């Protein structure tokens, strides 16, 4: 491929939008009136002009291929006037003004292996990350965990039976690129990094590795006459941040890198303010290819939420109402001392009151 380069880069940033918008979107741009959900996976938006736009939402694998994309394009050409879009949760959406297109499109999507759902009070697709497939620091696979969980929770993707939307994320290292969610599955390391002194000096910039540590546990040292780094194990909180800066700080381990479950994250401002998610289980084994312990737990949490949550109550809001004590009782999860914060703002999370449920 060492041919001479003649093209001069155009630094345009995001691709131009206009050619990609559905014609009905263009016509009614910013002039929408309301929407309805005729069935799970389908939205019906009505514009002030009276125009109607149906949206069919379907699951994808996120880790897709040109073959899959071309098949989706075929469907878009046939049923959605040559346009399609993705949601922020890796679902694909087809829009059409033809009500008659909706059912055949759904049938075709499901036939092609793309279940329709994820709207309204359902469990939408997991926002997940790279994992063993691509990242340089993962302790687990992301696509595999996501697939396993969604297989287990499939009914609730295709049905709108939850109290409110449920957003899940999974992250393949403690850094948590998946972000906050109603329920998140995140890697949790359980011991300090083992330092590979052989390679350290060659592969790592030491000062930036030192400064990457949130608790200043890394110090310069000399090993076998070579400059290297050491970890003050009492200080280290096993976060793995140093591993991102320096591959010699070997934090991953098939047994010691485990999975933790977090609940109650919320980004929307609806009713309650956005909230960070909280730790409710840890020490789950890293158990490919199906990580059954994880799905099992998620099912338990969702079952309790489904049974107890009131309409419009997000998972964290449900817990706020019934109290954390009952959350642990109703899910059967054990509370333990590690769930009490001991980091920077720990005090803020203590029960600074005599308010107690007995």
């Amino acid at each position, binding site marked *: 491929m060492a041919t001479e380069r003649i093209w001069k880069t155009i630094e345009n940033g*995001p691709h131009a939008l206009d050619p*990609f918008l*559905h014609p009905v979107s263009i016509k009614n741009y910013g002039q929408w009136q309301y929407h309805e959900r005729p069935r799970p996976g389908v939205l019906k938006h009505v514009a002030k002009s009276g125009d109607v736009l149906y949206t069919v939402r379907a699951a994808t694998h996120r880790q897709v291929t040109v073959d899959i994309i071309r098949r989706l394009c075929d469907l878009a050409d046939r049923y959605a006037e040559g346009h399609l879009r993705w949601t922020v949760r890796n679902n694909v959406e087809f829009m059409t003004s033809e009500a008659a297109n909706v059912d055949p499109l759904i049938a075709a999507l499901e036939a092609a292996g793309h279940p329709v759902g994820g709207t309204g009070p359902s469990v939408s697709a997991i926002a997940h990350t790279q994992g063993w497939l691509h990242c340089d620091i993962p302790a687990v696979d992301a696509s595999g965990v996501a697939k396993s969980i969604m297989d287990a929770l499939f009914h609730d993707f295709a049905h709108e039976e939850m109290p409110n939307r449920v957003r899940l994320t999974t992250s393949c290292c403690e850094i948590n690129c998946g972000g906050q969610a109603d329920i998140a599955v995140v890697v949790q390391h359980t011991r300090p990094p083992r330092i590979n002194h052989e390679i350290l000096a060659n592969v790592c910039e030491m000062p930036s590795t030192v400064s990457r540590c949130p608790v200043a546990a890394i110090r310069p040292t000399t090993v076998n006459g070579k400059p290297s780094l050491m970890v003050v194990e009492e200080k280290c909180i096993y976060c793995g941040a140093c591993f991102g800066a320096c591959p010699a700080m070997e934090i991953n381990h098939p047994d010691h890198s485990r999975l933790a479950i977090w609940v109650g994250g919320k980004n929307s401002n609806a009713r309650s303010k956005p909230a960070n998610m909280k730790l409710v289980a840890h020490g789950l084994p890293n158990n490919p290819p199906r990580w059954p312990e994880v799905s099992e737990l998620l099912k338990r949490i969702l079952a309790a939420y489904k049974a107890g949550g009131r309409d419009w109550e997000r998972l964290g809001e449900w817990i706020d109402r019934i109290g954390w004590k009952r959350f642990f009782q109703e899910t059967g999860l054990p509370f333990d001392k590690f769930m009490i914060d001991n980091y920077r703002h720990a005090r803020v999370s203590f029960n600074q009151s005599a308010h107690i449920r007995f």
Partner: protein
Amino acid sequence: MSDSQQSKPDPLQLNPTPMLDDLENGPWPSFIKGFKETAQRTGKTMVRGVLDQLNYSYETRMGYWKGGVVGVHGYGAGIISRYSMISDKFPEATEFHTMRVQPAPGLHYSTKALREVCDIWEKYGSGLLSMHGQTGNLQLQGIKAESVQACFDELNQAGWDLGGAGATVRTGLSCIGPARCEQACYDTLHVHGKVLSYYSDLTHRPQLPYKAKFKFSGCPNDCTNSIQRSDYAVIGTWRDEIKINAEEVENFIAAKGLEYLVNNVVSRCPTKAITLQGGKMVIDNRDCVRCMHCLNVMPKALSPGDDRGITLLVGGKGHLKVGNMLGSVMVPFMKMTTDEDVDAFIDLVDRMIDYWSENGLDHERVGECIERVGIQQFLDAVGLEATVEMVAHPRDNPYFKAGDYTVESEKDAA
């Protein structure tokens, strides 16, 4: 599996991946099925190698990629390079770089353009894509270093540009907003386009203390998760009164019943701004905090007001190193209608980025920087007035450098 790498003459023949095969079952789409299909159709051995290495990861419960430096002419970011640490075992997986491509705002595509991407990608790369990365990139996964420039040039000719990586402005994300949503309080898509185009240079060439992300949500429902996942969260809102369609309120009550209204609307308003008065639903807009809940439940009856604009929240990010940060209000309201409005917005953000560039430590996000230097200093530097909307409540400790009251008081004392 280590013997799975014996010489394989037939590129269409996959090696056994017993751990992965289980993931072909179940109702959810299977990425393994997809990968195998493409590998078998195209005979791309890179995909076979990646499947083999992935299967090995599943067996050993460890990852085997390491980074490196791969780029395109003139840019310092946009390619995430991946070399196998065990290429002796899986030579076909030796290189597996990803190109981060900036999609159009709202993740919209025409089939024409998307097919074109597929064709270019099949020509130069593995044929695997990730749609989309959590930040919002179209990730083309699996290309060798030698093919990167040509692939990019062809994509760029088709109107595509790379996204950010490392210490750059990152690819933005916007909700579908005015293209389909009745709640959109500003044009997320065009503002996204304009702002990110403006920051192209900072996207392509690492010159910042650390990453900087923008996300654009048309209303406080925040369908892009901007508050937690972006340094600059641009959230639509309105300043005047919620628009009430009285007839549709009646219809709602007729259809759902008054009790439903009480239990799901009136009593769910976080500030009790909604009351029932004489069987009618009354909103005291002075107490409304624009949470969206009542509008969400009654989209036909209630709509955002007419005096629309945005709230800018700054400092959202993951938990490294300070614990998870949600963005916090830096500009309670700003119009976002005209081009001048967008320019004024860019102007303000420029000042923030400048201040952070000069004062941020290495690997310090803007939110952490503000926390470290103190918000007062940041506000002064970027020329913003402190307002009560910025806080949940005023400070609860006396540890501040109060202003200097000398002048008048010394006069008094004299």
